[in-house]
């Protein structure tokens, strides 16, 4: 398999490009008002077709997370980070909590024990990572 900077071949690439840009915005790597890499820059970096990269950018633009400045390029829209973090929170239960609870039930770990385990792993985190990132 060719190296596409971590993209995989089994889901649409444009969605993966959009997902990665969204992650970067949510994590603050791409700040609001900052210019987003162009279609050709993304294509060269990920080694993918420019039209596919453009489709990924446009997906975020259609969603209002990016805005076009004529002749200069695409920029992160204001409020984009807050919206992305809110979406992530909504997905958190389905993505992380439900599988955790299901597997715990399968192993016979009861609720109290599960809560204790979660507390313990929270204490193992560095202080600045606890309850952070929400702003």
């Amino acid at each position: 398999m060719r190296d596409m900077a971590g993209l995989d071949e089994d889901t649409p690439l444009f969605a993966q490009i959009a997902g990665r840009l969204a992650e970067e915005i949510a994590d603050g790597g791409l700040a609001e008002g900052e210019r987003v890499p162009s279609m050709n820059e993304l294509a060269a970096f990920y080694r993918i077709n420019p039209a596919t990269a453009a489709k990924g950018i446009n997906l975020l633009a259609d969603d209002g997370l990016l805005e076009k400045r004529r002749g200069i390029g695409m920029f992160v829209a204001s409020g984009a980070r807050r919206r992305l973090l809110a979406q992530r929170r909504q997905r958190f239960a389905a993505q992380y909590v439900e599988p955790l609870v299901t597997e715990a039930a399968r192993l016979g770990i009861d609720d109290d024990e599960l809560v204790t385990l979660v507390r313990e792993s929270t204490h193992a985190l560095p202080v600045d990572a606890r309850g952070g990132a929400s702003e």
Partner: protein
Amino acid sequence: MTPAISVAGLTRRYHDNLALDQVDLEVEAGSIVGLLGRNGAGKTTLLRILAGQEFPSSGSVLVQGARPAENEAVLRRMVFVREDQTYPDFKVRHALRVASWFYPNWSAELADALLADFGLPAGRAVKKLSRGMRSALGIVIGLAARADVTMFDEPYAGLDAVARQIFYDRLLADYAERPRTILLSTHLIDEAAGLLERVIVIDQGRIVLTADADDLRGVATAVSGPVLAVDEFTAGRAVWGRRGLAGQASVVVVGALDEADRLRARSLHLDLGPLTLQQLVVQAAAQPADTVERTSA
């Protein structure tokens, strides 16, 4: 806009052998298209006819809106790099000079840069080049020609993985600068997949699938697990190829799965493995044409 390539009812017969069977095809200008299929599927015959190097038995072929055969105006706007391209008794630099006379958009600057990338010695006689180096020369000419329609037919015989990566990277970089129609025939689908905007799959002389490459990723999923669970999950769905052993079964489900499907598969203890483009093309070539058309629509 006129499509770069437009083919209708194209048939090519050699004695008893039907190399191309009623091929209909349109390629939009400015896209990178993969022509995929097994050896002997008809890829080279199709490209040779497009390049005016061979005549159809019947059907029509238009490149940039005109018939390519014996049409110099069209032929100068297209370049065709064959697998195992042969050259007259030239040095590398002479082969490039001749190409520069023929192709109006020739970039000497790009040719020089590519020679350096591939480590091709300009003063070496072409017949003294290794197989891989000869392939690299074809690639240099194919890219530096900057032809409106650029066709590569398995252009990398003897090239190692590093050199192939250089080819893909330079092709993308120059395409970004000078968009043009690029047709790449390859059996190294996994390697080239990311470059392609569209794919055309050909099998036994017939087109069995044309689609946006990205639309095919994740459109089929291998579902495996206990027979009963697999049967329950796949009931009423389009499936390809079923394999079984003892109490286990594996089938390919065609059509994207949603979140509810995934949860259901998990509760049935089924494994889901999305097919890569390469796996999908292999599957598509093994199906009767009508089922492929139905599922890709």
